[in-house]
């Protein structure tokens, strides 16, 4: 007898729909405390209101700008240091232990130090973001330059490549998939850290917005802020992967790493 096979692909969509309906109904009938857990439509309304009045967009722009500045600085430091330590032996010997001591350090523990240094200016957020984002990029770049087939370097040398040529035309391109995978990890990290630093000590940005609305007991607005952070995280990751598909397609390491 043939067993009936149901198509289960839509199950997940149904679960989401069911959760949203429950989110709407349970607070309305007082099963969940509506003050703390407002109905879905109220949160959507607060989100829409925040977008229309420009308040959420303003905080979003500030958070993204901080995250990006910290992220770009981390790329600069991470890729440079990673390439240098990966290619120059004595430099990696020199820095290894210091790096091993600093790397497992949770970046948020540095928040009070950064506040002492920078107050609540943007530099406070940016310095913590840079600290947290540098390590994945640095380590991946280092691993990438280490993984290069020495034959490629020898071949380039035979054809008369200078040190700079080697770096620009062989080492960095070959290490690129590693670097990109470090960049992807750090992108997520930058969003987390910008949120955290803003929650702890800032007067602008999405992290500040959710703490402020929490303190002012504007609960629908608070949920709207949390949803916005989720959307930003999702969107940036999507952008990164799309751009990666576009620009990294030439490298056989790309597809292997991301499927």
């Amino acid at each position, binding site marked *: 007898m043939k067993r009936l096979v149901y198509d289960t692909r839509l*199950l997940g969509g149904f679960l989401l729909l069911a959760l949203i309906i429950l989110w709407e109904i349970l607070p309305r009938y007082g099963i969940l405390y509506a003050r703390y857990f407002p109905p879905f439509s109220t949160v959507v309304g607060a989100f829409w209101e925040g977008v229309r009045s420009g308040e959420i967009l303003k905080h979003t722009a500030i958070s993204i700008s901080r995250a990006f500045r910290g992220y770009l600085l981390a790329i600069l430091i991470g890729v440079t240091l990673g390439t240098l330590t990966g290619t120059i032996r004595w430099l990696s010997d020199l820095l290894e232990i210091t790096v091993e001591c600093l790397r497992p350090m949770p970046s948020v523990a540095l928040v009070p130090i950064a506040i002492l240094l920078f107050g609540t200016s943007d530099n406070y957020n940016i310095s913590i973001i840079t600290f947290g984002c540098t390590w994945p990029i640095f380590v991946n770049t280092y691993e990438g330059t280490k993984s290069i087939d020495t034959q490629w370097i020898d071949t380039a040398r035979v054809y008369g490549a200078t040190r700079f040529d080697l770096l620009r035309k062989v080492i960095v391109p070959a290490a690129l998939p590693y670097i990109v995978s470090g960049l992807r990890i750090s992108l997520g990290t930058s969003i987390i850290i910008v949120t955290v630093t803003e929650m*702890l000590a800032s007067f602008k940005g999405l992290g500040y917005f959710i703490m402020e609305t929490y303190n002012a007991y504007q609960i629908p607005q608070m949920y709207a802020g949390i949803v916005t952070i989720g959307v930003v995280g999702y969107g940036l990751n999507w952008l990164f992967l799309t751009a990666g598909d576009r620009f990294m397609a030439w490298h056989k390491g790309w597809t292997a790493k991301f499927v």
Partner: protein
Amino acid sequence: MREFFLTKSKGIFFLLLLVFSWELVSRNKLISPLYFPPMSKNLVAFWHLIMDGTLPLELIRSFGRIFGGFFLAIGVMVPLGIAMGLFKPIYNLFEPLTELIRPLPPPAIIPVMMLFLGIGEAMKIIVIAFACSFPILINTMDGVRSVEPTLVDTAKTFGRNRYEIILQVIFPASLHQIFTGLRVALPIALIVDIVSEMVGALNGIGRFILVMQRSFNIPEMYAGVFLVAIVGYGLNSLLRYLNTALIGWHKAKFEAVT
């Protein structure tokens, strides 16, 4: 031992040089000694706080939260990951939901949890468990899926039933990948614990650092930061050690078969 010093001497020298220049720069007031007290002062504060039991007590409280959340996440997510890896309908049921929640930075749910649970232990344990969940879930799922089919077929040939196959073949064979998830999750647990203690707590190491900064006990603040650095380093080394122990066993058992 001699070889160790020959290869590591440069690195140790560099680290000591950094510490020493901190001391000098601060003593000569090139940077504000109020914000960057001399290293010796910080270390003395560190020593005193360890000896009078302040830091160890805060650390024990934080560890309770970290491991509470970590093990809660393991208890829920490893079985769920195995189920999602094995059964297509369960995968289809939960996949869109996880994809939707995953990009959310875990600390963003702290205010929600504070509404429902206050600033007690439960809030932190739930937030930490939430943050640890996704690396554990995804790695467990991947591990279960990448189990060599030969292993499962062999077990079937020898007449094992479904439960025996899951418990005796699939779970041990995916243990290596599950452990990768745990290795990613534990440092996250430490970070999220510190954040949640800074946002809302009465004690714990994250709270301690923040309170010391606000009351301008700067050497004490650095002492707390040093402790966090040591804990981070210690957890990292522990996991690395456990991993080699585990991989050795895993390789011997499963790569011989396939």
